[in-house]
């Protein structure tokens, strides 16, 4: 059996580990457009922050490819031929029996007027991006980051101590709009501001004039370095005309695309969100790994009755303040229930039809996974002491029988 994996990040690694649980002999080739040993993409901000280094960023040990008998190719795939079952890259063609597309996502760069006139502009998605930004920054540089989402803010944290100033601008009226509600966003924003980072929210950048961003209404932000962290887009082009694509490549619970013998996993895909039942892109490392592993198991012929359940979920921290969210955390759900403790200790739960659909924890995040499991499994809250659980996460909230299942078998 010949396996080809396009992409060398979490989904690709998951696929390798999935295949090798079943098939020790098959020929695995990984082709990546990055010349690196597999590394953890979310760690690029920690690299600039000084909390990790290139060696420790490796997502798997140095002997990973050797131990798993994987052939690694540094190359840029230009075409998939699903009839001939081949993958073309610069210099050659690979033949596959089973193919995984784990091409990830890329930074979305809006067509701002005058952007070409900005000399120092960067995106923040890859190790090369981080290295380029690291070369550019210094203590006398003012940095403007466009985008107050996860990537933009982690970038801000990573470089804050190494530059003169950081300003984060976003079109939205709050930070982290994809994971936080208004109140939670306010708490996190104030904390980040206390570390010297400035925000410009509801900021509609109309154009760039050299190193000045001109906002709708006439305000201007001067900068030396521009980081564009507006959003990401899935890399789906290779499967255009071959498999069904909506926003991302559509995959089922086996990580199969609509094309025979072609699987997809990670940020380039969209699949069912178990918390809402809707098909969406959930571009998160844990989901990427697990989708990749399921793809690998299935590619190698393993038939599992286990159905994966993916949900949006994030664990992230800024300057020591931790945030954990899961499920639907936007104000689209009625009957949202609110519990607030101290100002830096925020908890919010979104309950709908007797099940937990989402939660936000800021500050104290202990045992958050118990809440996550309620969302993932859609456990009816009548079966547990949810009032106790909201105040004090623990297995105590479950019935004695359920607890016994968890702790004695």
């Amino acid at each position, binding site marked *: 059996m010949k396996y080809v994996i396009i992409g060398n990040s*979490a989904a690709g690694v*998951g696929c390798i580990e999935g295949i090798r649980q079943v098939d020790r002999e098959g020929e695995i080739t990984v082709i990546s457009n990055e010349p690196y040993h597999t590394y*953890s993409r*979310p*760690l690029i901000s*920690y690299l600039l922050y000084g*909390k*990790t280094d290139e060696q*420790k*960023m*490796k*997502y*798997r*040990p140095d002997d990973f490819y050797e131990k798993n008998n994987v052939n690694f190719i540094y190359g840029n795939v230009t075409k998939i031929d699903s009839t001939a079952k081949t993958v073309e890259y610069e210099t050659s063609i690979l033949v596959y029996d089973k193919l995984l597309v784990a091409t990830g996502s890329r930074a979305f760069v809006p067509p701002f007027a005058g952007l070409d006139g900005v000399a120092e502009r960067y995106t923040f998605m890859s190790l090369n991006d981080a290295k380029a930004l690291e070369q550019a920054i210094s203590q006398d540089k003012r940095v403007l980051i466009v985008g107050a989402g996860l990537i933009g803010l982690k970038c801000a944290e990573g470089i804050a101590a190494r530059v003169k100033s950081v300003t984060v601008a976003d079109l939205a009226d709050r930070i982290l709009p994809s994971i936080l509600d208004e109140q939670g966003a306010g708490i996190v924003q104030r904390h980040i501001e206390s570390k010297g980072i400035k925000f410009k929210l509801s900021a509609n950048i109309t154009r760039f004039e050299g190193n000045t961003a001109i906002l709708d209404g006439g305000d201007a932000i001067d900068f030396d370095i521009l980081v564009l962290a507006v959003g990401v887009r899935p890399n789906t082009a290779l499967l255009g005309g071959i498999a069904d694509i909506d926003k991302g490549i559509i995959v089922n619970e086996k990580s199969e695309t609509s094309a025979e013998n072609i699987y997809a996993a990670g940020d380039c895909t969209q699949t069912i969100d178990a918390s809402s039942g809707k098909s969406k892109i959930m571009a998160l*490392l*844990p989901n990427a*790994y*697990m989708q990749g*592993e399921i793809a690998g198991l299935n590619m190698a012929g393993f038939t599992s009755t*286990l159905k994966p359940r993916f949900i949006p*979920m*994030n*664990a*992230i*921290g800024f300057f020591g303040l*931790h945030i*954990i969210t*899961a499920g639907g955390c936007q104000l689209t759900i009625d009957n949202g229930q609110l519990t607030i403790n101290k100002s830096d200790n925020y908890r919010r739960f979104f309950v709908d039809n007797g099940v937990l659909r989402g939660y936000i924890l800021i500050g104290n*995040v*202990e*045992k*958050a*996974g*118990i809440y*996550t*499991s309620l969302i*993932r499994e859609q456990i009816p809250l009548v079966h547990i002491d949810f009032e*106790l659980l909201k105040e004090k*996460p*623990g*297995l*105590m909230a479950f019935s*004695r029988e359920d*607890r*016994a299942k*968890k*702790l*004695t*078998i």
Partner: protein
Amino acid sequence: MKRVYVNEQWCLGCRLCEYYCAFAGIGGADMARTLKGVKINPRICVEENNGISFAVSCRHCEEPLCVKSCITGALTVNSDGGVIVVDKSRCVGCYTCILSCPYGAVSPSDDGVIQKCELCVKTVSGVPACVQGCPNNAIVFEERCVAL
């Protein structure tokens, strides 16, 4: 593999397991002297409410969500027996494992990363310190054949 199991009906809520766990992490000659006045941060935690108590520590799941979710690769399944271990030098303290663990068995450590039970079986008796220290057999170390 052998795991730590809980006999809820035997738990006295004495929290000695927490102290033995903390002591196993710190080391020293005498537990009482080492831990006197110390705010402990054990990897096993006793839950208590309305006269019910029981200890919770890592289940060492066969399909470990913490390991699969770990963004750095710091959490791994030990190749020689299925124990889930953490390489603290690679952990950045993002807490994705805390987000993922359905038992609440991964917690922040005092040194800014995470901690969890790693089954300290290299004790003199060959059983984890919490089990050894439990005065009432409320936590036991056994092989039970049902897969998690």
